[in-house]
């Protein structure tokens, strides 16, 4: 039988994710889950129901859930962007980051080496590491913006001429892509792009939580980033 070998040590902590950011993260995660599942079933519907059409409204409910979650995603992103302006500096990271700083690319390179098992320890960041910023900005933020724009363009096709979605999105976006069918195809492809982001995001968050010297998953619940040792925080 082994004895517990943890020695007494201090765990420095930094408050990183403010309440609105945390709230947004989990609401947004739920919205994406609903959007991906309902979206898939709009493209490839469930097996046909028999009986009277007036007894069912299955596609109607699926589409309603998709549109409702779409609104949550869109206004969530707007709210999150607002918080990037008024919140702390960490709230800005995924939207705006100085990519001209050599230290950013140095950090990104180091993080890549860490994932390729070429270095023994990752650097420590109180906010996102440079690779995380890269992925969240390019895969997540722009992927979501794309989905919101194409999504509302198709939504406007249904609400019709004169509706805000039609005037703001449909009129210019559909001709830009060629035709409605192309917008549908791209909306599907980018759904998978976001699903791939989610796979990587969840894996990396859990892995970092276990293998690096800092908390990840619990930080998005409590807001505090704790470090498992007193080594210096690299940041950038």
């Amino acid at each position, binding site marked *: 039988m082994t004895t517990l070998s943890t020695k007494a040590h201090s765990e420095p902590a930094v408050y990183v994710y403010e309440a609105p950011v945390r709230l947004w993260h989990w609401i947004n995660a739920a919205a994406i889950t609903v959007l991906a599942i309902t979206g*898939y079933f709009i*493209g*490839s*519907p*469930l*097996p*046909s*129901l*028999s*009986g009277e*059409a*007036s*007894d*069912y*409204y*299955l*596609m*109607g409910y*699926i589409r309603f859930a998709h549109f409702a979650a779409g609104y949550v995603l869109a206004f969530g992103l707007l709210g999150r962007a607002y918080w990037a302006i008024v919140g702390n500096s960490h709230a800005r990271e995924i939207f705006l980051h100085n990519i001209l700083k050599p230290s950013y690319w140095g950090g990104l390179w180091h993080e890549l080496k860490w*994932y390729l*098992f070429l270095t*023994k320890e990752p650097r420590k960041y109180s906010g996102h590491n440079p690779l995380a910023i890269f992925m969240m900005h390019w895969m997540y933020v722009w992927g979501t913006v794309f989905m919101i724009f194409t999504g509302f363009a198709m939504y406007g*096709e*249904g609400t*019709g*001429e004169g509706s805000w979605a039609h005037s703001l999105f449909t*009129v*210019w976006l559909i*001709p830009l892509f*060629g*035709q*409605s*069918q*192309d917008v*549908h*195809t*791209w909306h*599907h*492809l980018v*759904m*998978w*792009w976001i*699903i*791939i982001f989610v*796979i*990587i995001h969840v*894996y990396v968050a859990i*892995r970092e939580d*276990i*293998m690096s010297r800092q908390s990840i998953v619990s930080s998005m619940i409590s807001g505090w980033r704790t470090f498992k040792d007193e080594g210096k925080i690299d940041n950038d």
Partner: protein
Amino acid sequence: MPETFYDVMRRQGITRRSFLKFCSLTAAAMGLSPIYAGKIAHAMENKPRIPVLWLHGLECTCCSESFIRSAHPLAKDVILSMISLDYDDTIMAAAGHEAEAIVDETIAKHKGKFILACEGNPGLEEENTGGMSCIIAGKPYTEQLRHAANNAMAIISWGSCASWGCVQAAAPNPTGATPIHKVPGIGNAPIIKVPGCPPIAEVMTAVITYMLTFERLPEMDRQGRPKMFYSQRIHDKCYRRPHFDAGQFVEKWDDEAARKGYCLYKMGCKGPTTYNACSTIRWNGGLSFPIQAGHPCIGCSEDGFWDKGSFYDRLTTINDFGIEANADEVGMGAAAVVGGAVAAHAAISALKRTQNKGDHES
């Protein structure tokens, strides 16, 4: 003074009663209020017929076939007399040099005052390769088109050929077939697109009637299609829509659902992405339209509909990946690859971690 429409109609034995019926039906088809029936009647009684040159490029003549079947009460005699159809090689009796001379004559006589109706499109590859894909009276169609277009008051792009390119412009488009609005050097005459393969007969005649009555082009959307017929999708007004909302679909051509007339979405219906008036105006005098006959919409009035994969798949085939796939197959494949990579990475990470621990202990 040249004959008015009304004169022509009366000469052809059409009663005033039928004439007024035609006017009110046309007003209704265009979504105008009943008072416009009077305006249409007034215009037809007083305005001289607009000269129309109807030129044919690369096409199959289905637009003409549709047009002559316009089912309005007076269609078969009057629609063709409404306009002064000075030249249409498909349906005119004349042929040869004298018939061809009419084109130049009309252009010279009515410079800037005639409507150019384009059925089909030119193959621009002729100019690059010197090959021949559309020669009319010994000259490339492109030349005839440019000459007429530069002197026209307005251009009507009949059908998907003239509007988007249609089948002859489908990949790999060997003749360089190009829709009218993209042909270089055709001048600045406004272009109205009336897409469809073919367009609905009543839509074609209504567009002409509108232009005659109001002496301007009908209101158009950003893509140049008349809003009154192309602002809604087939899906929006489809009589099978309640089955879509309920989740009742045809799964096979001969299943019970097909017999009951359920939604054809899963059979590849393009109704949700196709802007046209088939589900309201319908075809052959309002008798039916493809979905009513049990076949999914193939999206024939949409840009490049030949290149969007099978008519019977809801999701577009994406050929850029070298294999036949749709967005879901591509996405799922990519997700599986990433998922596999993540699993492998996790395994290596776990292995490394135990190794490192071993290092610490030793």
